[in-house]
């Protein structure tokens, strides 16, 4: 590991991509989709600022990266997404 400033690289670089940084850990509330109400309009996918909604016919939340901002729940025209407190 680094002991002095001289051991450091020139600029902070991580040798792995930011995919390893699972931002889902930041979440306090998580979006849950009620597939009975979902009409597959994909508005939630369009609005997700973190590309954390995957379309697989129906939309699915990628809980590894979803930070729980709740924009999808707010935008859903059928109120099919509810925000539930994380355990």
């Amino acid at each position, binding site marked *: 590991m680094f002991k002095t400033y001289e051991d450091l690289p020139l*600029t902070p*670089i991580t*040798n*792995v991509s930011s*995919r390893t*940084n699972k931002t889902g850990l930041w979440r306090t509330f998580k979006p849950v989709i009620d597939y009975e109400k979902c009409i597959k309009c994909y508005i939630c996918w369009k609005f997700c600022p973190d590309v954390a909604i995957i379309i697989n016919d129906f939309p699915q939340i990628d809980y590894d990266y979803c930070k729980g901002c709740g924009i999808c729940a707010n935008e859903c025209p059928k109120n099919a997404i509810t925000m539930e407190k994380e355990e």
Partner: protein
Amino acid sequence: MKKVVTGNEALAYGAKIARAEVIPAYPITPQTTVVEKIADFMADGEMKAKYIKVESEHSAMAACIAASNAGARTFTATSAHGLTLMHELLFWASGARLPIVMGNINRAMGPPWSVWADHLDSIAQRDTGWMQFYCENNQEVLDTVIQAYKICEDKDILLPAFINEDAFYLSHTSELVDIPDQERVDEFLPPYELQLKLDIDNPMGFGSLVMPEWYMEFRYKIAEAMDRSRKKIQQVSKEFNKMFGRSYEMLDLYRCEDAEAVFIAVGTMASTAKEVVDTMRKEGKDVGVARLRVFRPFPVDEIRELAKTVDFIGVMDRSYSFGYGGAIFSEIKAALYNSDYKPIVKDYIVGLGGKDVTPKVLEKIFTDGLKVRTKGLKDKEIEWIGVKGLGGW
């Protein structure tokens, strides 16, 4: 090849023969003809690069950063409000240790709206971690672009630089400029190699978060690199001289060795000042001019050396920091405070917004300096020159 070109064309030729590979461009008066000329080169098939038309200067610098991080030699140019819009990204470029080279046409900040020469735009970027060069003529503009890439891309430096030229005095004025042959430039300037770069096949995180226990350590590395750049600038100038027969000092001294009073000039004003020195020398007045070519890194040793032999230093600042004095005046005094030689230093605020700094104006300043040298400063440490209603000038 010798060609009659404007300062802006000299910047464009510099980018071309330095083989800049990515040119993010956003136009602003009086910079526009720089990126226009580069577009011409590319349309004519004389220059191979990626030309990115961006929506603002903020984006122009963001594109430079990304391209430089991917290992491409990048060039852009801007002016005044464009440069200040880039401000945030300028910090990023130096912090990410990217050797971006940029042209800046020194222009006044509004309001009052102005497109004319003034150094406030670049002086206000003092703390961004960029090297700053100020040119006296179009030849120096072109030569400095080539030198800047060599300095910036050195593995011991890896910092960005911008090259300043006075609006219209250089940007739109034509002079005979020697444009070095491509093969010779290629020999002088090897291709840009970046060790760790953006690569879609090998993704990495750039500009990561650092906790307080390591932040200062990264900043200290930048401080060290900027300190090392003083020697590097001189070394590259010597190598350039060997190859192309032209050399440049960080502090360009003109008839200073036996001068009683020396005046600091920056940019094109220095040429006029040298003329005035010659005229006054004939009248037996021992004045000299020191042209500050590099503002960052600041040539502290050269200033201290100069102070050993003179009793008076007059600083002609083409910018003003509201609240206290011109920046170059403040920096020179700061450099001298802990040295053994402390000549009187007086600040002359001149030429803001392109107000002409004529030989007559400079002669009055030099005469005032000689008087202050013997009689002392009294209350006028900072004086605005040529302001209607202030009198005396």
